[in-house]
């Protein structure tokens, strides 16, 4: 579905990603693992157009995503749940969700989509008029995921959805991710919590200093001594 071919990405003068290639197959769950600062979020930010690669290509089918206007990427079916959730903190929960349906065609059906999100997260319906910035971390993550789902994505990219959340909430969020995948949404998951990510993913990449250090099927990686030591703490 989506392939990244030998991209170099810079923050100003500093090169963060070095000749990185990954392949995300339709309908699968792919995990991007690695320690803090390995460049995981940078990869997602490049895929969603916030950053541009200096070299290499991002291809969706045969279309170059790294050459089109960044704001049109979501209309190609790629939705991004960013690190730190990045809600519009002074807008209401409902306004935040509606922004996910900004594209003209989606905007016309925003009420129906909203109902779908409220069915998924009844909690958000209770809080719909509340300012997003005043929600708890778990609720904010629900809004972030809900907002991304409002665009009816084919592929959902999640950046550390477990960060700072209680274990119980993390569990329910990962259950939700699995359900969404079963419904046919391709998942690209960035996680520091390698164990939980490997459990739900089909294929994984391990990033180190902006390069792929290791890749493989999740079950194989789980047995890999290196991964065990470096990320699972076993």
């Amino acid at each position: 579905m989506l392939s990244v071919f030998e991209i170099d990405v810079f923050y100003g003068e500093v090169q963060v990603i070095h000749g990185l290639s990954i392949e995300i197959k339709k309908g699968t769950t792919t995990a991007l693992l690695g320690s803090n600062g390995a460049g995981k979020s940078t990869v997602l930010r490049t895929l969603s157009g916030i950053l541009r690669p200096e070299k290499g290509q991002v291809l969706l089918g045969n279309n170059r995503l790294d050459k089109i206007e960044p704001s049109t990427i979501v209309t190609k079916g790629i939705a991004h749940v960013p690190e730190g959730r990045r809600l519009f903190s002074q807008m209401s929960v409902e306004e935040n969700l509606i922004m996910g349906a900004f594209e003209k065609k989606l905007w016309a059906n925003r009420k129906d989509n909203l109902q779908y999100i409220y069915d998924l997260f009844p909690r958000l319906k209770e809080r719909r008029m509340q300012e997003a910035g005043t929600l708890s971390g778990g609720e904010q993550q629900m809004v972030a995921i809900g907002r991304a789902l409002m665009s009816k994505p084919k592929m959902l990219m999640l950046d550390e959805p477990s960060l700072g959340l209680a274990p119980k909430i993390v569990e329910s969020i990962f259950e939700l991710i699995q359900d969404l995948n079963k419904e046919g949404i391709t998942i690209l998951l960035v996680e520091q919590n390698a164990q939980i990510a490997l459990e739900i993913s089909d294929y994984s990449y391990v990033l180190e200093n902006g390069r792929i250090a290791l890749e493989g099927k999740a079950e194989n990686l789980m047995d890999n001594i290196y991964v065990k030591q470096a990320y699972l703490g076993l």
Partner: protein
Amino acid sequence: MDVTIVLQQIINGVIVGSIYALMASGLSLIWGTMKTLNFAHGEFYMLGGFFMFILNVQAGLNPILAGAISILFIFVVGVIMQRLVIHYLMDKPGWDVSPLIATFGVSIFLQNLSLKLWGERFKNIPYYLGGEASFFGINLSYHRILILIIAVVVIFTLWAFLKYSRFGMALRATSQDRDAATINGINTKKMFMITFGISAILATAAAIMLSPIYSVNPWMGESLLLKALAVIVIGGLGSLVGAIIAGVGLGVLEGVGILFFPSEWQNVIAFSILIIVLWIRPSGLFGTKEW
């Protein structure tokens, strides 16, 4: 002191204040989205005055049509200014102040351009409505009542636009988190251009209403810009509610102040209030909350 005089001055103050609010909300909108001040905002106002003069007085169009065309033109001027000047200076690390300085340049350029084009002679636009109303011993020209009505309608429309329209919501989203706006499909570059255009419209609306009272000339925007700057700082940068309340409040205080001080002390009143507010609440009255 006679109560009717005080009442008269309060009403006059509300009317002048509504124009301050109109001007200030345009500045506030730009600060909210782009985190820069626009020192050429007074020149949008000035161009609005000249367009109105040309279309209404010279071409003889009726005020509504002349006003509508002026608004359209100045909207385009605002959009072009953002695209040609601000666009290139935003987001450069270490260049944070450069858009602001560039707006100074645009201000000087536009003043001199209009001086070249239209000369230094002051031009007058007749009142759109003649006559005056009297009630409770207070006299109020219909034109001033019209100013208040237009200002309230324009500000209310702006508020409703920001609150409920697809575009207005996108504009607020852009101001709160640009990257998040981008990944939701909002073209923030376009948003910035349109924000400048809308801001220019607000200044033009003020110009259309005030030009018959003051005269049209290349420097007419300067003093009002200074007031509008004081208003947005008092109200809290980026806060639309703050701009409205501080605008009207300042208008009333100036109006009443004239009863106690000579009129040339008007600016002293405005800037004294500014200093006191900065002293007590450095972020302005509504400074913590963005619209």
